[in-house]
C-alpha cells in the first residue's frame, strides 16, 4: 500500500527541523504514513526495501540510547545503510566544529543526516551546509519533532484524533525541546494545551505560543484527557530552579492523588528516560491501564520510518550544486 502510493505522496519540506511551520496536512501526512509501519513492525518480517541504497547517518553530539536506537532501527527496517556517529567520542574532542564534521560527512554523500546536538539551532545550521535531508533529533531546548509526532500518533491511536483534547504538559518546560515541539503540534492540530510547573520552569512569554499556564497540578490537570510528564533536565540547569527533589515531587510529581483531578481515563505519557520518584511516581508510570509510555517507544520507530521515507522521496535523483 505504501509502496504503491509513493508516487502521490508529497511532503512539502526538504528537512524536518521542527514542528513549528508544519501545516495540519503535513502532520496528518506524517502520521497517516506512520500508521502502516506500526503494523509492519509487529510482523515477523519487518524489513522493507524502500531505502535500499540510501545512506543514513545518525550524528549524535549528546548521549542518547532510545532516540538513536529508534532511528537506527527505522533506517534498517526500510533497508537503508545506517551509520552511527557519537561525536562526543570522536572529532569534537580534537577541536573540529559542527560545520567541519558536517562537510566531512557531506562528502560521503549521505541521503539523510539525523542530528542530535546540545545547542538550539544546530540542525538549522547543518541543513544550510549539506546536500542531504536533515532530521532534527533534538537541538538543545528548541525542538524534537519526531518525539512530538510519536506522541501525536500514540494519542491519535488511543483517542481517534487530537482535535479538542485537553493536554497537560507538566514539569521542566523551560529546558524542554519535547514541550516546544508538542506545543506547536498540539496547537496546530486543534488540541488545547496547558502547561503546569513551578514558575521557575515556565519560560517567559510562553503564553504567546497559545497555551494556558498553571502553577498547581490539581488545578492544571482538572478535566485533562492527556497528561504528558517531562523529565527534569538537571544537566541543563545552571543554578536554582527549585529547592529539592523532595519538594519538587511533593508539588509536581505525578501520583494518583494529583492525577485524580484529570479525567478518569486520562492517558499518561512521558518521553523518557523517567526519573521515578522525581517527576513521576513508580506506581503511576507502571500502570498498564493508564500509562502509554511503552507504546510511545513503539510508535517512535514507526514515526521515524515515515520521516525517513518521506524525506528521501523528496530527494532529487542526483545531487545538485556543491555547497
Amino acid at each position, binding site marked *: 500500500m505504501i509502496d504503491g502510493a509513493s508516487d502521490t505522496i508529497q511532503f512539502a519540506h526538504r528537512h524536518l527541523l521542527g514542528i513549528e511551520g508544519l501545516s495540519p496536512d503535513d502532520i496528518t501526512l506524517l502520521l497517516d504514513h506512520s500508521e502502516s509501519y506500526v503494523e509492519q513492525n509487529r510482523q515477523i518480517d519487518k524489513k522493507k526495501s524502500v531505502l535500499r541504497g540510501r545512506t543514513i547517518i545518525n550524528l549524535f553530539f549528546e548521549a542518547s540510547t532510545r532516540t538513536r536506537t529508534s532511528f537506527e532501527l527505522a533506517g534498517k527496517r526500510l533497508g537503508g545503510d545506517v551509520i552511527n556517529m557519537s561525536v562526543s567520542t570522536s572529532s569534537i574532542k580534537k577541536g573540529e566544529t559542527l560545520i567541519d564534521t558536517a562537510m566531512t560527512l557531506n562528502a560521503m554523500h549521505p541521503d539523510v543526516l539525523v542530528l542530535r546536538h546540545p545547542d538550539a539551532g544546530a540542525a538549522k545550521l547543518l541543513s544550510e551546509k549539506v546536500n542531504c535531508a536533515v532530521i532534527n533529533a533534538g537541538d538543545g531546548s528548541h525542538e524534537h519533532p519526531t518525539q512530538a509526532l510519536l506522541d501525536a500518533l500514540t494519542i491519535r491511536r488511543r483517542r481517534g484524533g487530537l482535535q479538542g483534547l485537553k493536554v497537560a504538559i507538566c514539569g521542566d518546560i523551560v529546558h524542554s525541546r519535547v514541550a516546544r515541539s508538542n506545543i506547536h503540534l498540539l496547537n496546530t492540530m486543534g488540541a488545547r494545551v496547558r502547561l503546569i510547573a*513551578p*514558575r*521557575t520552569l515556565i519560560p517567559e512569554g510562553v503564553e504567546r505560543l497559545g497555551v494556558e499556564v498553571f502553577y498547581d497540578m490539581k488545578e492544571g490537570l482538572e478535566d485533562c484527557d492527556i497528561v504528558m510528564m517531562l523529565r527534569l533536565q538537571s544537566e541543563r540547569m545552571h*543554578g*536554582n*530552579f527549585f*529547592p529539592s527533589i*523532595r*519538594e519538587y515531587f511533593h*508539588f509536581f510529581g505525578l501520583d494518583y492523588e494529583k492525577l485524580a483531578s484529570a479525567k478518569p481515563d486520562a492517558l499518561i505519557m512521558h518521553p523518557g528516560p523517567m526519573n521515578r520518584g522525581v517527576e513521576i511516581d513508580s506506581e503511576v508510570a507502571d500502570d498498564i491501564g493508564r500509562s502509554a509510555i511503552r507504546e510511545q517507544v513503539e510508535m517512535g520507530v514507526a514515526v521515524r520510518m515515515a520521516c525517513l521515507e518521506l524525506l528521501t522521496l523528496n530527494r532529487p535523483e542526483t545531487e545538485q550544486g556543491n555547497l
Partner: protein
Amino acid sequence: MAGKPSESLGRVAYVNARLVDPASGLDAPGALLTEGEVIADFGAGLFSEGVPEGIKVVDCGGHCLIPGLVDIRVQLREPGEEHKGTLASGGRAATAGGITTMVCLPNTVPVIDDMSVVEFIARRARLLGLTKVYCYGAVTKGLEGRALAEMGMLAEAGAVAFTDGVKAVGDAQVMRRALSYAGTYRLLIVQHPEESSLAEDGAMNAGETATRLGLQGIPRAAEIIIVERDIRLVEMTGGRIHFAHVSTAEAIEAVARAKTRGLNVTCDTAPPYFALNETAVGDYRTFAKLSPPLRAEADRQAVVDGLKNGTIDAIASDHAPHDEDAKRLPFAQAACGGIGLETLLPVSLEFYQNGQMSLTDVLRLLTCGPADVLGLSAGRLEKGLPADLTLFDPDRAWKVVADDLLSKSKNSPFDGRPVQGRVLRTVVDGRAVYGREG
C-alpha cells in the same frame, strides 16, 4: 499569667472601653464580649442595660481597647542563642508591649530552612500560651544566599513568608529565582534591603557624623540599590516583595512609585528610623548601632512622611536582643540591633501625642496594616475572630528604663526616653496574658 488550655474561659465583658478598630474605622465608647477564645460581640450599645449575670466583667476605665498589636519583625533567638533571648522571655516582653501576634526571623540555630524548626517553634510557643508566634522561613538554605530553601513545604508547615533575615538575598539571579519560585505558591519574600558589598565594612550611616567619629560609613545607596533592583525583579517575575525597615527617602519613593504602577510591593519601618537619627550614636553608643544604620535627619523626616502618606504599610519593632558581651565592644565590633517589643507602642504613639496622626492611623500601622502585609487574620475586631486584645492608656507617661524591661537582653536604643502610652492588659485567645495595676 498564662492560662491553662484546659481552663474554662467562659464569657468576659470588657465594659467602659474606648473601642478603636483601625480596620473598620471604629473609634467609640462601648463594650466587647469574649466567649471562650473568640470575640462574641462588641459595639457602642452592647451592655447598655448592664451586663447579665454569669459574665465576668472587666472595667476598662475608659481606656482604649484595640485589636492586639501585630509585630512582623522580631528575633527571638530560640533555638540556638538562648543567652540573648528565648521564646518565653520574648513572649513576656511582647505581652507587656501589647503585642498579641509576632513573626520571628529565621536566623536561629538551626536556621528555619527545615519544616521541623517551624514545627518546633510553633509547639513551644503554643505551650507557653503567651503572644502568638509565627515564623518566616529562609529563602535560601542556611541563609547562605545560594540554593533555594524548600519554600513550598515550609509554607505548608506554617511559615508565613520568606526572608534571609538580617541578610539580603544579594545575588540578582538567586533573587529572581526566589521571587519566581515563591510566586508558584503565591508566597511573599521579605527583603532586608542592603547591598552587602557596600555595607559590610561600615558601622554607621555614611556622612559627616561617621567622618567625625572616624567610623566607616554605610552609604544610603546600599539600601536604595537593592530596593530599586528588587522592584525590577518583581516586575519581571510577577512575585511579591516586602521591604523590611526602610530608612531612606529614595527607597520610600521607589516603593511609592512601584505601588502606583500596581506592583506587589509593600514595606515597613521600625521606631528607631522615625524617632531617632544618627546623632543618637553620639559618643559611640553601641545601643544605637542598628541595621540599617540610623540615618540623617532628612531621611528620618522622609520615613515620617512615608508613614503619614501610607507608602509605608506597617511599623514593626525589629526586636533584636543582644547580650552585653555583644554590645560592650568598640563600636565597629559591636553587634547590630536593638530590642523593641516594649517600646513599639509608646514610641509610635508619639505621632498621636504631637498631633501628626490620628490615633486610628497610628494604630492601623501596628494592627491590620502589618497583618494585611502577611495575610494574617489578626489585627482587627471582628466577631468570631480570636480574642486577641490590648487595653492601653494612651496618655499615661512613663520613662523607658532598659533595666526595668522584661526582655532578657536590655539593649534598647530608647533607654531613658520619656514616653506616653501604657499597656494595661493584654489578652490572647480570650486569656489575660499580661496585666498592670494602677
